[in-house]
């Protein structure tokens, strides 16, 4: 029965969703690697980028996208400087709750800016053409899905090269493995952290562009749901290493897509229950993550 309903359309949609989630997972995993900080405010970076796209909707698409990148990267650096840096030595619980507070703050600021015209939500239409579907072998694929998958593959490939082949990449891997020892050996902490934060900002901007194409109405809670799901996916995959975190992000997107396609239409409202019940099950069986190594000792 399951096989019968699991058609190509479902798979294509699931892969598209997984690709976007994987990009976000890398952004969250990069910062976690060097700072041991679960950045809940990551979704608000995406949201800021989406608003930039909305407010620059009558600019040429390229300029609009450039503005989006500039805003998101600047905001990431400001956050690192004003919030993450003073908290570097705090317990993970305090860091996580602080990023909640920051997320809450950014969302409220967005709300204040947004409701000036009396309505909530701003349309971002300049690059909406990507949302049209093309038919490939009888399966409807939205152009943006193709773009998302291609961009995800390219970005992840470049990142892998960067981490494997460059000095700064080596420093980042060293810092993620053992920050203290890395510093002792001459890795400059602020530079490595700054670089990781900028990279994660770039990824947030990419996600902002893709998500805005998919759903052009930008509201203060834009990308909030996605961030939560990706955070869950990252931990389920194994947050300790970047590639397991990424796989976790992809897996939760892909699984949601597949379950959504398989569930009877009148039962799709229970999709979150199904996905999160699965999450609990995986965590119980493999607390260190689905793709993690042997069960790790507790960290918090």
């Amino acid at each position, binding site marked *: 029965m399951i096989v019968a309903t699991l058609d190509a359309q479902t798979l294509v949609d699931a892969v598209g969703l997984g690709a976007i989630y994987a990009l976000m997972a890398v952004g969250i995993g990069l910062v976690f690697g060097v700072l041991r900080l*679960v950045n809940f405010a990551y979704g608000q970076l995406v949201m800021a980028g989406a608003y930039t796209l909305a407010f620059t909707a009558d600019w040429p698409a390229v300029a609009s996208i450039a503005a989006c990148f500039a805003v998101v990267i600047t905001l990431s650096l400001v956050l690192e400087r*004003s*919030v993450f840096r*003073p*908290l570097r030595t*705090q*317990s*993970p*619980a*305090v860091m*996580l*709750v*602080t990023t*909640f*507070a*920051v997320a*809450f*703050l*950014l*969302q*409220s*600021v967005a*709300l*204040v800016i947004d*409701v000036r015209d009396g309505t909530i939500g701003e349309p971002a239409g300049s690059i909406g053409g990507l949302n049209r579907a093309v038919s490939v072998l009888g399966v409807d694929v939205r152009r943006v899905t193709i773009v998302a998958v291609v961009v995800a593959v390219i970005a992840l490939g470049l990142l892998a090269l960067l981490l494997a082949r460059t000095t700064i990449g080596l420093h980042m891997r060293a810092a993620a493995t053992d920050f203290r020892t890395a510093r002792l050996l001459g890795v400059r902490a602020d530079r490595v952290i700054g670089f990781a934060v900028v990279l994660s900002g770039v990824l947030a901007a990419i996600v902002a562009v893709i998500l805005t194409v998919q759903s052009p109405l930008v509201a203060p809670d834009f990308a909030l749901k996605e961030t*939560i799901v990706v*955070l*869950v996916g990252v*931990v*389920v995959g194994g*947050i300790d290493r970047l590639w397991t975190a990424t796989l976790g992000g992809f897996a939760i997107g892909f699984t949601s897509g597949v379950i959504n396609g398989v569930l009877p239409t009148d039962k799709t*409202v*229970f999709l*979150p*229950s199904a996905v*999160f*019940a699965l*999450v*609990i099950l995986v*965590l*119980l069986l493999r*607390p*260190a993550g689905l793709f993690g190594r042997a069960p790790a000792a*507790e*960290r*918090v």
Partner: protein
Amino acid sequence: MRRIEPVVALLGPVVLVAIVGVLAATASRANEIYFLSAIVAVAMVASIYVFVGNSGVLSFGQISFVAVGAFAAGVLTVPGQSKSFVLPDLFPFLRDHTVGNIVSLGIAAVAGAILAALVGLPLMRLSGLAAGIATFAVLEVTHNLLREWTRIGPGATTLSLVPETTGALQATLGTIVVLTIVWLYGRSRPGRLLRATREDSAAAQAVGVGVHRQRLLAFTLSGALCGFAGGLYVHMLGSITTEQVYLELTFLTLAMLVVGGLTSLWGAVVGALTISGLDSLLAKAEAGTFLWDAPSGTRLVVVGAVMALVLVLRPSGITGGRELTLPRRSS
């Protein structure tokens, strides 16, 4: 002095809550709700503190017990004659029974405890981020079921016609009961054992403390108190949707706890009263009925900024995570 100190740790919070209770009783009808929400916030945050503060394990799931308590108490107290019209899909035992307000609070506590025990039994094996995410998944599942399954509640619509019985008296008394139970637990042997596992899990296990058992006990107690607080909450509001006991409340209550100081009851109370007090003042300012006329949206921005500032400047919280003590003579 030694004998008095632990009592001070209870008396401080109780006196604060009682003062807010008196303010609520004497306030005008329009202002009463601000004081009441502050008191109910204290009940919730203290209930979360029982588990999170004593165990040091971050849980995002406690609001699911608040939600279950709120909907259990709410659904069971909607007057019988109107229930079959507003909530036609309910299971017969929910549809045909209507209980009084005090009984409904008891049922809310039992419902919270049962759910917490069932969920905690497997989940309390986890710690760290895995525990945080798993408890968060519990919140998502609870919210999803409450929202979509109309046999057990109102579904996505508003549950209304709940008797508004949480006035100044019930809110204050109920919250003082919660504070006393939390304090007693903290003084008890299980409470001390659990704090030992928080400080050094390996050392605690080495001297024979059953970490899983102690965590499960506190988690269940926290579930019961959260359910009870949820009952108070629904009887304060009179009508409720599933969105009101979901993400925003989870983050807000956790932020209150951390802003006050994660590891003490005093911190939980101070954090809850500070944030809800600030929130109420700004809400009144936005409405133009307090001192200055604030533009709309100020409230959320200021509350967010204050929470972030306190956490960055003073990560151990306003109270530093210590209980209230009498000032010592310096000689």
